[in-house]
């Protein structure tokens, strides 16, 4: 941890970055995101198993963006988010310094996004054990059982859209859900309406979700909503052999056309 704090102090003192987004002690044994601007505050940075929030979200937040060049403490999910949003032109390489952090709290420095891509290609991207267990359970269900499981889970949804607010990929200035000409998604939380909203969102995230789990973490009703998007991730990997957050130049799987596309309906 010391090497990280030292690096952050260096970066801030030299003016190389204006702010470093990291984890700090919150209230009641919680962890909160902190925005270190003074070199002496680097000592407030921490990292342990409680630090799971996807800090990359803040890289694109208006108030933070306008501070200038920003650094971010980056566990794997943050690294992948940086690459994915860069590939979607939401972040430029020279706007961010990625301070990679391993689970042993070791600092991994990257001088450019290509190095980040290499690092990720060698990393273990499998799901955490607890989530893999639930995924396997659902995979083993019959279609009717899966439908039952999801309609049951989604009936708890109160349509607060915290999942959308927390997701770093949901940065659309006018989301479908905010459109009233026509009103695609109704405000009411009805069983089928909830399913409609979440399926639509999962489709918009296919090939883009980086498995950070922020959606499920922010859901006040504790619906495992991340599993829906995780499923689209594994389907995209199976069909197109790519996954999100692997490259800063990768084209979006569902919105780019290649002449050697597997499907022939478009030829």
């Amino acid at each position: 941890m010391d090497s990280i704090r030292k690096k952050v102090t260096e970066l801030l003192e030299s003016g190389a970055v204006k702010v470093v987004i990291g984890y700090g002690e919150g209230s009641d044994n919680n962890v909160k995101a902190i925005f270190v601007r003074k070199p002496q505050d680097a000592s407030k940075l921490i990292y342990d198993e409680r630090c799971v929030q996807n800090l990359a979200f803040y890289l694109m937040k208006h108030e933070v963006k306008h501070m200038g060049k920003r650094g971010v403490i980056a566990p794997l999910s943050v690294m992948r988010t940086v690459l994915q949003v860069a590939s979607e032109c939401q972040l430029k390489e020279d706007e961010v310094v990625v301070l990679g952090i391993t689970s042993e709290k070791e600092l991994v420095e990257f001088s450019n996004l290509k190095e980040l891509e290499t690092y990720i290609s060698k990393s273990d991207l499998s799901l955490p054990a607890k989530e893999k267990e639930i995924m396997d359970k659902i995979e083993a269900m019959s279609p009717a059982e899966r439908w039952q499981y999801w309609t049951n889970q989604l009936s708890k949804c109160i349509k607060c859209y915290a999942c959308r607010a927390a997701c770093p990929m949901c940065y659309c200035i006018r989301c479908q859900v905010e459109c009233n000409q026509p009103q695609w998604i109704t405000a009411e939380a009805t069983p089928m309406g909830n399913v409609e909203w979440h399926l639509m969102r999962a489709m918009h995230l296919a090939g883009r979700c980086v498995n950070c789990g922020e959606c499920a973490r922010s859901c006040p009703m504790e619906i495992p909503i991340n599993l829906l998007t995780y499923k689209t991730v594994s389907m995209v990997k199976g069909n197109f052999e790519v996954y999100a957050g692997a490259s800063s130049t990768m084209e979006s799987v569902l919105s780019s056309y290649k002449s050697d596309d597997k499907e022939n309906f478009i030829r």
Partner: protein
Amino acid sequence: MNIEKKLIKPASLEKLVILLKEEGKQIFAPVKKDNLVNFAEISTLQEMTEDYILTVQSAKSVAFPKVENLFDIKTTKESITLTDKNLNEIPEIVLLGARPCDAAGFDSLNAIFTWDYIDSIFVERLKKVTIIGMSCNKYDAKCFCTSMNGNPGDTKGSDILLTKTNDGNYLAEIITEKGKGIADKHSSLFESISDTIDKNKFIAEVPVKFDLKQILENINKSFESDLWVEQSLRCISCGSCAYVCPTCACFDIQDIYNGHEGHRKRSWDSCGFGLFTLHTSGHNPREVQSQRWRQRVMHKFAYMPDRQQVVGCVGCGRCSRACPVDMNLKEHLINLAEEVVK
């Protein structure tokens, strides 16, 4: 009305639930489902859980539902017919197991919905709610009711307040005429109780975290403080705080219509959302999150006390529990007060 003290045994409470249900009332109580406790309709007392500190969502939806039909619309080529909401169709509800902070929240909501213009739908719903509250014998780090002029055994807002005593029976305080109505009608279930019972022995002791008077005074002076930006940097504008809060009442009005019939409805909204104050011209008076965070706090602690003589917070701590980024309201209030004093 003087508060009358009675005793109700668990078996009698069970019977009361059944009798109230037979009278045609809907009974909402805390129910545990998939690890979360929330208010849901019950038919028997067994369905209710007592092993929790607070429900995730507040109880406000019994009087202020997430979506409320205001009136129905029917159109033909020749005419448009509006059918007013039939207030008689609003059911009688018994809110069983509401914590004192939940019960106190209705006061704030009422202040907004009866401010000059009377929202008859809300008033009718609230009139038909009877609150049988339940005192708290435990609390967690997020609770701060005692800093908000409340306490875990407060009778304010409840019609009857139950406190579980050490022998498993409940002290039942009959507080309002509505509560008296139930206690008198089912008098066999409410027994007399010894005068020496000390309620405070069975109620959690929540430490006071701040001086509310000082907070209210200082918040009024803090509009230009830089602290709003600092505090809101990590806010992701998810709206969870407003949705779980017992006193948040901001709403949107929309029409649902399929070409020949529909209705106009009001539904929950949050001042924390980016589009809340967006003008069609593209101008947004609250463009950045720090302005929206400031609006949230000042509305509750400065504007409401000034215009409606009620503070828009009961110290239940739900906002802090639901927040995914640790925007701890209690801490923020203390920081704000300290900052202004400096």
